[in-house]
C-alpha cells in the first residue's frame, strides 16, 4: 500500500521560518565570545567552572541546536519527503522558548540562582518537546533513504535523552539529592554530543556529502551499523551509570566515539574522491570539522584534557559545520524563493543573480579564516592554559567570525528582500 498521508513536495515552510533561526544563531556565539573574553581563564582551566558550563550551552543550544532546528524545519521535506506539520507557527514558538531558555540557563549556570535555572530548564523543556513532537510526526511519516531516516529518528531520541538528563541535572543543582552527579553530567554530555549532534551529522552527511560534491555513496559496512552502534553504546553507558559502574560507561561512550571517528575518516576519503573539482568554503568547513572530530577522538581515547576535547567539538564541529552549511543553504533558499515566484508569474524582466551573489565566496572564505584562527588559538589555549594571552585572542577571533557571519547573512537576506521588491514593482507595471 502506498502511504500518501502528509504527501507534499512544496518548499514548506516560508523562507522567514528557517531564516529566523539562522539569523539569531551568531548572536549566541558573540555572547559566548564575550563571556570567554571576560572569564576565559577559568573556562579553559576546568570544564566544571560556571563559565565553562555557560559557554558550552550558549554554543550548543544557542548556535548549534538553533541552526539545526531551522535547517530541519526546512530540509525534512527534501531529505525524507515529509514536512513538519504546522511548521509556520510551531517554528517561531519553538524558537522563542529555545532563545529564552538558553539565555536563562546560561545566566543560571554562570551566576547561580534557582529562578534562572528553573526558567531556563523549563523553557527549554517546553520548546524542545514541542519540536520533538512535530518532527516526530514528520519522521514517522517519512520515507526515502533508510539510513538517513534511521539516523534522524535516533538523533531525535538522542535529543530527548539529552533533555531529560538536563532537566534532572537542573533539579540536582536546585538541591534535589542525586548520587554521583558528575557521572550524570557525563551521560548528559554523551547523549548531547554523540546521540543528538553526532547522529544528526551521520544522517545529514549520508545525504549531503554525496549530493554537494558528487562523491560515491557511503559504504554499507559503515552506514548500516553506525547509528545502531552509537545507540547501543549510549544505552550501555546509561545502564552502567544507573548501576554506578563508571568503568563500563566509558566503554559505551568509547564505541560511539570510535564510530564517529571512522565516519570522519570515511567522509574525508569520500570527499577526496569527489567529482566536482572546486574547493568551496563548505568543503573547507567539512574538512576542518572532520579533522576536529578525529583529533577530539584521539585526545579523549588517550585520556587527554577534557577542555581540549570540548574546544575541538564545540568550536571545531559545533561552530564550523553549521557555518559551512549556512553558506550553501541561505543563498540557495534566497535564490530559490525568488526564482519560484518568477516562474509562477512567468515574468522574467527582473534579472536574478545566481546563488553566489547572495553571499560572496571571497568573504565566506575570510569568515572561514577567522573561524580557523579562533579554533587554533583556543585549541592551543586548552593545551597550555597557563599561556594567558591565547584565550582572549581566541575569544576575539570567535567574536569576529560570528560578527562577519552575521553580516554576510544579513546581506543575503537584504538582497533577497531587495530583489523581491523589484520583482513586485515590475509585476505592478
Amino acid at each position, binding site marked *: 500500500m502506498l502511504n500518501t498521508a502528509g504527501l507534499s*513536495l512544496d518548499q514548506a515552510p516560508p523562507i522567514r521560518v528557517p531564516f529566523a533561526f539562522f539569523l539569531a544563531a551568531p548572536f549566541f556565539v558573540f555572547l559566548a565570545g564575550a563571556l570567554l573574553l571576560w572569564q576565559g581563564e577559568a573556562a579553559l582551566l576546568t570544564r566544571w567552572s560556571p563559565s565553562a558550563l555557560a559557554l558550552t550551552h550558549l554554543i550548543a543550544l544557542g548556535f548549534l541546536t538553533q541552526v539545526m532546528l531551522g535547517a530541519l524545519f526546512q530540509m525534512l521535506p*527534501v531529505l525524507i519527503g515529509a514536512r513538519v506539520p504546522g511548521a509556520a507557527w510551531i517554528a517561531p514558538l519553538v524558537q522563542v522558548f529555545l532563545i529564552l531558555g538558553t539565555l536563562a540557563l546560561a545566566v543560571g549556570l554562570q551566576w547561580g540562582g534557582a529562578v534562572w535555572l528553573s526558567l531556563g530548564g523549563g523553557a527549554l523543556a517546553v520548546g524542545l518537546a514541542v519540536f520533538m513532537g512535530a518532527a516526530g510526526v514528520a519522521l514517522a511519516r517519512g520515507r*526515502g533513504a533508510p539510513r538517513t531516516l534511521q539516523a534522524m529518528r535516533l538523533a531525535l531520541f538522542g535529543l530527548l535523552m539529552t533533555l531529560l538528563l538536563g532537566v534532572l541535572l537542573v533539579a540536582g543543582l536546585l538541591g534535589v539529592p542525586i548520587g554521583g552527579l558528575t557521572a550524570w553530567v557525563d551521560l548528559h554530555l554523551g547523549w548531547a554530543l554523540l546521540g543528538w549532534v553526532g547522529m544528526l551529522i551521520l544522517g545529514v552527511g549520508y545525504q549531503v556529502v554525496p549530493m554537494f560534491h*558528487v562523491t560515491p555513496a557511503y559504504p554499507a559496512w559503515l552506514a548500516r551499523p553506525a547509528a545502531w552502534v552509537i545507540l547501543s553504546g549510549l544505552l550501555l553507558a546509561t545502564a552502567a551509570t544507573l548501576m554506578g559502574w563508571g568503568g563500563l560507561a566509558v566503554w559505551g561512550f568509547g564505541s560511539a566515539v570510535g564510530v564517529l571517528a571512522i565516519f570522519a575518516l570515511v567522509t574525508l576519503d569520500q570527499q577526496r574522491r569527489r*567529482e*566536482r*573539482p572546486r574547493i568551496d568554503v563548505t568543503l573547507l568547513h567539512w574538512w576542518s570539522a572532520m579533522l576536529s572530530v578525529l583529533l577530539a577522538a584521539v585526545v579523549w581515547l588517550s585520556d587527554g584534557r577534557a577542555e581540549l576535547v570540548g574546544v575541538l567539538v564545540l568550536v571545531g564541529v559545533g561552530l564550523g559545520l553549521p557555518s559551512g552549511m549556512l553558506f550553501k543553504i541561505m543563498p540557495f533558499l534566497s535564490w530559490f524563493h525568488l526564482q519560484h515566484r518568477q516562474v509562477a508569474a512567468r515574468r522574467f524582466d527582473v534579472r536574478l543573480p*545566481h546563488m*553566489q551573489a547572495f553571499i560572496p565566496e571571497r568573504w565566506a572564505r575570510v569568515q572561514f579564516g577567522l573561524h580557523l584562527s579562533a579554533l587554533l588559538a583556543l585549541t592551543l589555549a586548552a593545551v597550555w592554559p597557563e599561556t594567558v594571552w591565547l584565550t582572549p585572542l581566541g575569544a576575539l577571533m570567535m567574536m569576529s567570525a560570528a560578527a562577519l557571519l552575521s553580516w554576510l547573512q544579513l546581506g543575503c537576506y537584504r538582497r533577497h528582500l531587495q530583489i523581491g521588491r523589484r520583482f513586485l514593482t515590475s509585476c505592478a507595471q
Partner: protein
Amino acid sequence: MSSIITEAFTHDHHACDHLLAAAEKSLTSGDWAVIGQASEALISTVNHHFDVEEQTLFPRLASIYRVASNPIEVMCSEHAQMRALLSDLGEAVAQRDRDTCQGVLETFHFLTQQHNSKEEIVLYPMADGALRDQATEIAGLVARES
C-alpha cells in the same frame, strides 16, 4: 514491490550529476570548445530526462493516481526553473563568460539535488506502484547510452 522505474530514473539522475561535474571540470581547462561540448552534453541529457517525465511518466502516473497531481505540478514548476538556468548556461557559454558559467552550474546543481531527492523519495516509488505493467517500457526511455 518493484522498483524498476525508481532505479532507472535515479540512475539517470546520477548520469546527469556526472555530466555536471564534467562541465565544471571543463571550466578549469579554459578551452571553450571543450566547455561547449561538456555543457551541450549536460543540457541535452537533462532535457531528455525532463521530456520523458513530462510527456510519459507524469501523465500516466496522474491518470491512475489523482493524488499525484499536486506533487507533479511542483516537479514541473522546478523543471521550468531548471530549464531557465540551462538557457542561462547556454548563453554564458556563447559569451565565454566563465564566472557566470560557474555560478549557473552551482545554482543548477543545488536546485537539481533537492529536486531529485524529492522525486526519488516520493514520485518514483509511487510510479513503480501504479505503473507496474508499463515499468520496463518507461524505464527503457531513460536508459539510453548510460
